C-alpha cells in the first residue's frame, strides 16, 4: 500500500512492527524481504514517486575540506533514493577488505567475506545482475572483446556487472500488493524519540511539507537514509543523549569515507596497442545489462606495500593529442627504416634493453593504418580506498533547513596513508604493465602532489555509523544494531568499517538482506 503522508490528518499515528526510515536500495530491500512475512512494516520516505525539487532541497548541506559536488546533487529524496540516478555499476568487496589489516588504521569488519557471500548471491538476483560472472576471460570469449593479459604478478583484471536498476521500479509492484507493508511518501522524519533513559526508541517525529505532524510507533526501527543522512539523523536525535543517539563514544558521523579518483598518468601500450572497443569500456549486453573491466592489484601486493585497495581505470587519451605525436613519430620512424640495424652484441643489447622501440614503432604504424580502431595511449585513472579517519566526518551545520533542523556539514579529509595508497598504487600499476611487457606508464603525480585539484569522488558516502562489536570502536554492532539502543538498526553504507575500492550498492543490498534475516529471526512481530 502506498500512502501520501500529506493526506493524513494532523496528529495521526502510524503503527507497525517495523518502521524503516528511507526508501533507497537498503530500505526497499528490507521491506521487500519482509513482505508477506507476517510483520507489519511501515516504510517512510521523504520524497515521492518522482524527483521533486521542493523536497530534494532538504538534502542540501555544507562542506569544508575537499571540494565536493553539492550534497543535494548527489543524493535524491524519492522512492528508490539515489538509485534513481546512478549508473548501476556493481562489484563485491574483496575478501581481504573484510579482514583486519594491521597496516590499515581502524580496518576489519565484525565478520568475514564468507558471512556475506550468500547475501551477495541474493543481491545479484534481486538486482538482476546475471549471469554472475566475474572472470574476464569468460566475458572476452562471449563478447569477442580484448583485454590486457596479466600473469601471476601483481596486477589483474576486475569485472563489474552493470544494471542501473531503479529499486522502486523493481520492488514497486510487490510492495504495493503486500498487505503487510505500507509505504508512506512525503514523510520526513525530524527525530528519533527514545525512552527517558535513552535505551530504546519509542517513536519517530514525522512531518510533511504540507505542515501536518505525525508520530510513527513500532517495536523496531531501521535507519536507512544514506551515508550522510544516517549520521545526521542520529545527531539530530539529541533530546535525551545530548551528543546524539548512539553517540556515547563520539563516533557518529566520524570515519566518513569516499572513493577519491583522479588521473594519475598515461599508459603507453606496446605491441598493437588495444582496440578502442574493449572490455575496459562499458559493453552493453542485453536488456539494460552491461559489463566492464578495470585493473586491480592483488591482495598480496597491497599487503607487501602496506597500502589500501586501489582500482585502475583505462580511458583512451584524447585523440586530438595523438595526432601531433603520431606525426613526429612518423618522421623519425621513416629515418630509422632507411638505416641498417647491425647484428652484433652491442646492437642487440641495445635493442633488447627496452621494448620501447617496439612500443614506438607499433604506435606509429597502428596510429596511421587504422586510427579509429586502436589506441596505444590511455589515461590511467585511479580509484583509491580511503582509510577510516576519525577526522573525516559529518557534523551538524549552523544553517538550518526548512523544518528548522541543522543541515549536514561534511568535512572530508584524506590522510598521508591515503596519499601513499594512491601513489604506490599508481606505481604498482606501472610496474605490473612493465613486468608483463604491456607498456610503460608516465605518472603525473609525485609524492608531494598525489591528489590533484581535479580529484573527484565516487558519490559513495560510507563509514559514518561504522560497524564494530566494541561500542568504543563502532556505532553499530555486527548485526547493525546501534550500541546501547535495543531496537534501532542502521542499514546502508554508513555501517561500512572500510570502503574497499568497489562501488558500494551491491554490498549495501547484501547487508540489507542479512539484516532482514536478522530482524525476521527476532521473532514474529520483530519484538525487541
Amino acid at each position, binding site marked *: 500500500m502506498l500512502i501520501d503522508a500529506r493526506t493524513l490528518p494532523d496528529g495521526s499515528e502510524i503503527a507497525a512492527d517495523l518502521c524503516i526510515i528511507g526508501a533507497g536500495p537498503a530500505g526497499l530491500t528490507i521491506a521487500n524481504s519482509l513482505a508477506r512475512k507476517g510483520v507489519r512494516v511501515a516504510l517512510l520516505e521523504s520524497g515521492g514517486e518522482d524527483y521533486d525539487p521542493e523536497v530534494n532541497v532538504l538534502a542540501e548541506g555544507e562542506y569544508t575540506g575537499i571540494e565536493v559536488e553539492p550534497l543535494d546533487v548527489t543524493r535524491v529524496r524519492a522512492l528508490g533514493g539515489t538509485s534513481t540516478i546512478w549508473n548501476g555499476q556493481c562489484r563485491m568487496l574483496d575478501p581481504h577488505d573484510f579482514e583486519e589489516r594491521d597496516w590499515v588504521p581502524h580496518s576489519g569488519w565484525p565478520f568475514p567475506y564468507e558471512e556475506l557471500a550468500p547475501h551477495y548471491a541474493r543481491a545479484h538476483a534481486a538486482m538482476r545482475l546475471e549471469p554472475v560472472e566475474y572472470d574476464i576471460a569468460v566475458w572476452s570469449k562471449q563478447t569477442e572483446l580484448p583485454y590486457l593479459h596479466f600473469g601471476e*604478478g601483481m596486477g589483474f583484471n576486475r569485472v563489474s556487472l552493470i544494471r542501473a536498476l531503479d529499486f522502486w521500479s523493481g520492488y514497486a509492484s510487490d510492495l504495493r500488493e503486500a498487505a503487510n507493508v505500507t509505504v508512506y511518501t512525503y514523510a520526513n522524519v525530524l527525530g528519533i524519540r527514545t525512552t527517558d533513559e535513552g535505551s530504546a526508541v519509542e517513536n519517530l517525529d514525522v512531518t510533511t511539507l504540507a505542515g501536518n505532524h505525525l508520530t510513527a510507533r513500532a517495536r523496531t526501527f531501521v535507519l536507512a537514509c544514506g551515508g550522510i543522512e544516517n549520521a545526521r539523523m542520529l545527531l539530530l536525535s539529541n533530546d535525551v543523549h545530548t551528543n546524539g543517539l548512539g553517540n556515547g563514544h563520539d563516533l557518529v558521523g566520524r570515519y566518513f569515507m569516499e572513493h577519491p579518483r583522479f588521473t594519475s598518468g598515461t599508459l603507453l601500450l606496446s605491441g598493437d596497442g588495444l582496440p578502442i572497443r574493449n572490455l575496459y569500456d562499458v559493453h552493453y549486453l542485453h536488456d539494460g545489462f552491461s559489463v566492464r573491466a578495470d585493473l586491480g592489484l592483488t591482495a598480496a601486493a597491497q599487503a607487501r606495500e602496506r597500502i589500501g585497495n586501489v582500482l585502475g581505470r583505462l580511458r583512451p587519451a584524447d585523440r586530438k593529442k595523438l595526432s601531433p605525436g603520431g606525426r613526429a613519430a612518423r618522421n*623519425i*620512424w621513416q629515418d630509422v627504416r632507411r638505416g641498417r*640495424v647491425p647484428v652484433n652484441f652491442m646492437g642487440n643489447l641495445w635493442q633488447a*634493453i*627496452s621494448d*620501447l*622501440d617496439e612500443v614506438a*614503432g607499433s604506435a606509429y604504424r597502428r596510429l596511421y593504418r587504422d586510427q579509429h580502431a586502436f589506441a596505444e595511449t590511455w589515461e590511467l585513472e585511479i580509484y583509491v580506498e580511503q582509510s577510516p579517519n576519525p577526522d573525516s566526518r559529518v557534523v551538524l551545520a549552523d544553517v538550518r533547513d526548512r523544518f528548522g533542523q541543522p543541515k549536514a556539514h561534511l568535512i572530508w579529509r584524506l590522510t598521508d596513508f591515503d596519499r601513499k595508497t594512491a601513489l604506490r598504487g599508481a606505481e604498482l600499476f606501472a610496474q605490473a604493465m612493465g613486468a608483463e*611487457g604491456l607498456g610503460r606508464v608516465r605518472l603525473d603525480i609525485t609524492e608531494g602532489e598525489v591528489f590533484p585539484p581535479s580529484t573527484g569522488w565516487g558519490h559513495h558516502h560510507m563509514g559514518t555509523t561504522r560497524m564494530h562489536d566494541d561500542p568504543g570502536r563502532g556505532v553499530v554492532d555486527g548485526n547493525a544494531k546501534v550500541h546501547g539502543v535495543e531496537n534501532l538498526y542502521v542499514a546502508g553504507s554508513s555501517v561500512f568499517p572500510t570502503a574497499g575500492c568497489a562501488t558500494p550498492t551491491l554490498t549495501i543490498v547484501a547487508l540489507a538482506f542479512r539484516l532482514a534475516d536478522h530482524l525476521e529471526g527476532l521473532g514474529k512481530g520483530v519484538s525487541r
Partner: protein
Amino acid sequence: MNIRTRRGFLAAGLAHTAVVTLLLSGVKTAGASTGLATPEHWAKAAGVGPHMADLGRCCIEWGAAELDPRVLVARLNGALTARGLYPDDVSPAALRAALKELRRHEFLAGEVVRVDGWVLCRSEARGYALSVVAAARS
C-alpha cells in the same frame, strides 16, 4: 625535460633504434675527439631531435655514477647473472629473451626508477644511459 608527452616518449623510443644504427654505422659524434660528448652533441649528430638526449640525460642523472659504458654493461650483465638469467650463449635471440625476463623480474621486484615521470626498470634505464654514453665515445 621534453619527455612529458606521448610525442616525446615515442620519439625517444624511436631514437633509441636510431642511435644503434648511427653508432654502428661509424658515425662520429661531435665530441668524440675531445672525450665524452654531451647528450646535445650526440643529438645533433644523430639528427633525431632532443627527445633521446632528454631521456638519456634523465637516465644519466638518475645514475650519475655509471657514466662509464663498461660499468653500465657490467651492471647489466651482473643483473642477469645474479638472477641466473645470463644465457648460455650470447646470440641475439637468447640475449633478448634474457633481458626481457630481467625486465619482468625488476618490475615485479620494484627495482624501478622514475625518469621524467616514466616508470622504467633499472636495466632499461641503464640501457638508455648506455646509449648516450657509448654513442658519445664511438
